[in-house]
């Protein structure tokens, strides 16, 4: 199998699977229980929590909460903040729906972060948008569709210079893949397990000041009252293991993957002259492009018949047809929205897989390019 949809989800590290299996069997107790079994699990969770804070470069007294998904993490911040009349939120419509949908549902006055043609933030307009009414700014470190990396420390600093806004970072596509550290201007960060070789159903939320947001879930008071729900110890343990593995090989992996993504860009440009690759400064793990004239789903399905798997848009929004607001925010004209493709790599991607991808991609393109969309 030649899997190039790691940005949607990736397979478990075999070591993670092993830990998960044994933990599901052995660590059955409720971590909140008063007896020794619960106590031991709870101790371990505290240890993992501290290590996550350390990896993120955060302070010991900051908070790290285990959630069920990055969608929950993003929602927790956006829906948990208190907004008053006159407040505004600054966000980017190119971001993942788990950011844009809750923001657009708050009822707060919204301001958009405008992107340039290459996917980078238009700094002039960004600066203009910052005023004291802005109470929340959400920034995505690596965009899930075009892979563009934002200069988070710089942007967060700009925000704090002019406002007192809460700065929330969606680091789902960067955590464990490219270097990311929390700076003093960042208030919260979402990360997730299943993009870095851990299981689905577990994610994390960093909060500088846990009291700044109201919890979404009330109940037994787990996670220091911040997220009631019986802690899933096995999932937390597996997430921790995946995080350790991903971060330990982060530099080596990203160097290797960068070579692959450069090769993919170069070869595709050569073989398919009409291909468009407008995005600069992207994560080595994501290569996205526009193939004018042919519906991206047709390419995707032809490739799957040849055991090659890529993505047309974010897996969450593939069901939409035609117009895509996040692509429009990336300055991609509507006529190309059905022509957008994403190839995403993982730390275990091999050279052979990359060669298979390139060979099959070019072959598919040649065999179906007579089917032009009208």
């Amino acid at each position, binding site marked *: 199998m030649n899997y190039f949809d790691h940005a949607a989800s990736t397979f478990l590290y075999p070591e993670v699977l092993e830990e998960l299996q044994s933990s599901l069997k052995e660590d059955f107790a409720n971590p909140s229980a008063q007896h020794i079994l619960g106590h031991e699990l709870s101790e371990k969770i505290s240890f993992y929590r501290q290590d996550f804070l350390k990896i993120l470069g955060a302070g010991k007294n900051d908070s790290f909460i285990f959630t069920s998904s990055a969608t929950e993490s993003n929602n927790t911040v956006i829906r948990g903040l208190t907004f008053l009349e006159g407040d505004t939120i600054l966000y980017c419509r190119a971001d993942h729906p788990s950011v844009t949908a809750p923001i657009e549902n708050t009822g707060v006055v919204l301001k958009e972060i405008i992107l340039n043609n290459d996917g980078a933030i238009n700094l002039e307009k960004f600066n203009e948008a910052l005023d004291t009414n802005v109470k929340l700014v959400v920034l995505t470190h690596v965009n899930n569709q075009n892979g563009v990396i934002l200069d988070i420390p710089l942007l967060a600093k700009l925000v704090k210079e002019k406002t007192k806004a809460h700065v929330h970072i969606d680091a789902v596509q960067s955590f464990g893949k490219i270097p990311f550290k929390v700076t003093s201007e960042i208030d919260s960060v979402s990360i997730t397990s299943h993009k870095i070789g851990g299981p689905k159903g577990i994610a994390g939320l960093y909060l500088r000041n846990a009291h700044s947001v109201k919890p979404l879930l009330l109940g037994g008071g787990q996670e220091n009252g911040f997220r009631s729900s019986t802690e899933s110890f096995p999932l937390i343990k597996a997430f921790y293991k995946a995080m350790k593995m991903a971060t330990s090989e982060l530099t080596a992996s990203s160097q290797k993957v960068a070579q692959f993504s450069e090769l993919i860009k170069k070869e595709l440009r050569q073989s398919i002259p009409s291909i468009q690759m407008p995005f600069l400064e992207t994560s080595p793990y994501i290569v996205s492009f526009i193939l004018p004239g042919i519906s991206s789903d047709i390419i995707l399905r032809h490739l799957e018949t040849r055991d090659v798997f890529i993505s047309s848009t974010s897996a969450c929004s593939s069901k939409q047809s035609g117009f895509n607001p996040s692509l429009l925010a990336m300055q991609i004209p509507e006529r190309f929205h059905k022509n957008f493709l994403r190839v995403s790599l993982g730390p275990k991607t091999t050279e052979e897989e990359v060669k298979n991808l390139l060979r099959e991609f070019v072959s598919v393109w040649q065999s179906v390019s007579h089917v032009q969309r*009208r």
Partner: protein
Amino acid sequence: MYSNLVISLDELWLKGKNRKDYFRAAVNHIGAVFKNYHSDKFSFKVQSERLYYTSTTFFSEELIFALTKVPGLAYISPCKILDRLPDENLENVYEEILNELKSFETNPVVFRALVRRVDKNFSQTSVQVGREIGHRVITKYPLAKVDLKKSEMVIDVRILPKHVSISTQSRKGMGGLPWGSSGSAVTMLSGGFDSPVASYLMSKRGVKQAFVFFHAYPFVGREVVAKIKLLTTELAKYQRQCHLYIVPFGDIQNLISKNCRDEYRTLIFRRYMVEISNMICERIKADALITGDCIGQVSSQTMANLHLMDKASERMILRPLVGFNKQEILNLGSSIGTHDISILPHDDACSLFAPKSPIIKPNLEYWNTWDADFDISAELKNAFDKTESFSVNLKGEIYKKDFFSFDS
């Protein structure tokens, strides 16, 4: 709630010597519906060509609704059966009727009473009894009106030798001929509005059907198959049982579109769909094809182009919609519940490959020789062999069959 159902058959009076066969086909189909929708014991008897079903428990609304989709039935009448009182006393009948018509208290319903004496020894005439019923109903429910010609509902009363049956909730069946009494056919579904309606009309005429869909994967996605299954679920309710075949057709469409003149694409696709459908007919011993063609609706449905399809088909092509207007088709689709499925969006291979100006008057020489240079028969056979097969029960539940088989 009723534990008696009376079912009458449609068009039976048109039949002569084969009357028995029609009767049996309908009874078998009704029996299958009962088995699927009524878990308790029931018995039935035939009396003057009407079927009387009785159970110890009530028949559900679901069962009655399913019966309205059984071809060949004229009426499905849930009824109460009362014992006859001595001396031709019908007081218990009148009382029960007034009891059943409680909704008349607030609704201005126009009704009539239809009384029949099966027991010819009963001395009062039907008209006398009918009048008495009408009188009592109007007296108790002043909003109600009698009109023998324009009634909205009928109070059906039958005086039997020992009982009286009363039915005020009679449902119209779909009519026509019993399932399987008019041969069998393969219905070509497209996902649009027309073919499901065509299937329904042929179900009404008793045609046993299998459904075929040509799936242009990987040019189109899997959503369309889900949609075809939804349509099949609705259409299967008019069949006693049926099959659905999904034929992989993307490679063939790609091959054709690369090798033929643009303007002939659609026509040539259709020709090979017809050919594969004939192969399926051959395998399952079906007599005809059914399509949703309508004369002049789109360019592939000109008289000349439809004629070419007839030539490409070994079997008769039934086109029940040939003279329908689009709005008539849409209305019928709404009434049988397929319209709202047909409107679901899906990728359409035909529009993907559609020529800019499709041919309207095809050149026969080209039509007959376009494939002289290469052999498409191997591709057709391959598609036929890779066809996915599903069986569908009369509830519309679809089951995948592991092997390519057309038996029931």
